[in-house]
Every structure is written in structure tokens, then in C-alpha cells.
């Protein structure tokens, strides 16, 4: 964290003042500069880079397996699905636990993101299976 604060300071986005404390070492209080506040607002307003994960490893495995005579891509779909369900089991139970324990909103939303991504990936695996099955029947 301190290297980040230093860098922001160098860039003129962050200022600090040293506050002396009795019986404790001096502390630095950081505050955004005018340029820093502008930069923050711009970052918040700009759409985030969407990570579509198009170099997805499972996808590459399936496409490679399709071209090998002795490898069945459907077996890869099955093993990826098993791994995905294990992860989804953990995350879904954790999500349910988080709801029960009244965990922080940030934790609940982060778990929701993980659950929905895993669900989407499982749907995509179903789609892969359907298409690859048709191809192998031809």
C-alpha cells in the first residue's frame, strides 16, 4: 500500500501532512489533491474494462482435444463441469452462510459475483457439450 501512496504523491494526486503524537511515532495523514479528486471522479465515471476471459483455458483445451484423434473433448467437458460444481458447492454454501450470519454487504455481493460467474460457465459447458456431441455424431 505504501508504494502506491508514494506513487500517487509523486504524480501530484495525493498530499500528506505529518501529525506528531505524544508517546507514539508521528503519523502521516493523506488527502487527495484537487487533481486527485478529478482523477478519482473520472475513474468512477468511465466504464470498467470488461474481462470477457476470451483466452479461457477450458476453451483452448476443448479446441485442442477436438483435433487430436485419441482425445474426447466431451471427457474434458465432464471433468471441467465436476471441478466447477465443486467450486459452486463451496461458494453457494458460503453465500448461504453469509446471509445467515449477516456478513458485510461487500462480502455478500462478491460471493454473488462468484456464484453467477460459475453458473454462467456451467451453462457454457452445457452448450459446448451439446455442440460437440452433434459434431461427433456426424
Amino acid at each position, binding site marked *: 500500500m505504501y508504494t502506491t501512496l508514494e506513487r500517487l504523491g509523486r504524480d501530484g494526486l495525493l498530499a500528506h501532512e505529518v501529525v506528531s503524537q505524544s508517546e507514539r511515532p508521528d503519523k502521516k495523514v493523506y488527502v487527495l489533491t484537487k487533481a486527485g479528486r478529478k482523477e478519482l471522479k473520472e475513474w468512477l465515471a468511465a466504464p470498467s474494462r470488461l474481462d470477457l476471459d476470451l483466452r479461457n483455458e477450458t476453451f483452448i483445451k476443448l479446441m485442442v482435444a477436438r483435433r487430436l484423434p485419441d482425445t474426447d473433448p466431451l471427457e474434458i467437458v465432464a471433468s471441467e463441469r*465436476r471441478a466447477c*460444481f465443486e467450486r*459452486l*458447492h463451496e461458494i453457494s454454501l458460503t453465500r*448461504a452462510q453469509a*446471509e445467515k450470519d449477516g456478513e458485510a454487504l461487500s462480502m455478500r455481493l462478491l460471493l454473488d459475483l462468484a456464484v453467477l460467474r460459475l453458473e454462467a460457465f456451467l451453462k457454457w459447458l452445457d452448450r459446448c457439450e451439446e455442440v460437440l456431441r452433434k459434431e461427433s455424431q456426424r
Partner: protein
Amino acid sequence: MMGDTIPAVEARALSRVYGSGDARVEALREIDLRVEPGRFVAVMGPSGSGKSTLLHLLGGLDAPTGGSILIGGEDLSRLNDDQLTLLRRRRIGFIFQAFNLLDVLSAVENVALPLLIDGMSEAAAHADALAALTLVGMAERRDHFPGRLSGGEQQRLAIARALVMRPLLLLADEPTGNLDSGNSDQVMALLRGLVDKQGQTILMVTHSARHAALADRLIHLRDGRIVEEQDLSRCRPASKVLEDLEALS
């Protein structure tokens, strides 16, 4: 010894054929399945894979054309109609996508109904119904009519009714199919809790991967056959996952 436990439900070479000749459909083909007491099993598969047929056969709602079904070690094919009716009423609880509640009866009356049909006195049935409502967190709604309850509450009421006879096996056919995601998650948390706290055995058919993933064991059907079985009970506990996430933030 675990190996000696009588399974809550067992299917041996279970088959179901509909129609004949050109219209012949093999809905289930020689399914073998054992569910130990206290386990939560989810059945998934594309439409027409035989999921619902399996559930209906295991619950004695439909008769197999081959193989056998044992509920708590009792072979369904050896029971006459009256015995089968009794077994269905006392040992098996059903919940469906549609809640199938009676609108003219209050919550507690809906839940008490199976007990009254079984010949229990009204006072005793009322007490047991209230206990079942408490179990699903619906005790304060005891006097409400189903029409005044949310979808999630109606399904919890249906679960209380399914549990009131303390069935060996709870069969759930798309229990969250009619619910929005918030209510679905609540109903699923309830089912998971019944397994963890009451040792309830549940077999659930679902389209939702997220809900299936809450079970201990997953079964995938395709074309009437089990094509994949997965044990999820050895995954990391929720507390461990939370710790890891907290370390991240």
C-alpha cells in the same frame, strides 16, 4: 457400520417405458441408485432426460415397467394399493413447483391436513402442524391463508406440510421453479438446513446449477440413464472459504 445402513430409498435396474411400437419411449433405462439417510441428492439433466419420471416412480406416484424400488428397505412392488397409499402418506413427503395448497384452509390447517387424513385427533394434529411450521420459520403465519402469502412463504408452507408426517424421504420436483431468486435462495437454505440439522433425506430435481450445487451428491441424467455422479460432500466448508475471501479484501 455405514455399509449396513438401510438406504432411505433404493432403485434397482429401474425402468419405465411409455407407449409401444413406434410411440415407444424409454423414459428410464435400468437406473441403480441408493440414497443413505440424511443425504441431500440433486438430480439434473436436460428436459426429457427422465428426471421427473424418476422422482414420480420413487414416490410411488407412477409404477415402473421394470426393476424395483425400496423405501426404507420396503419393496413397493410387494405392497397392495392400500399399503402403497399409506407408505406414500407416512414415509414420503412431496414438494412441487406449484405449491398445491388449499386456499380455503389457513396455513396451520393446510399443514395439519395429512395428519387428519391419517386419523390423528384435531388437537394433536394442530400441535404437530405448528411444530412443522416452526421448523420452516412460518409459525407467525399460522392463521394466514395461502393467497395472502408470498411465493416463498407458500413454498415453505408446502415444505411444512410435506414434513409434518416426519417422512423418511422428501422428494422435491423443481421446488424453486416458481420463485424469484431471493425466495429461491431462502427455500434452498431451508432445505439445506433440514438436512444438516434434522438429518432429513432429500432427493431434488432441479434445472438450477446453483441450487443443485447445495446438495451433497449430484446425479446427471441423459436419455433415461445416469451419465454422471458426483460426491460434493468433501468440499471445503463455508467457514474456510469466508476466511480466504476476508484475507483477500
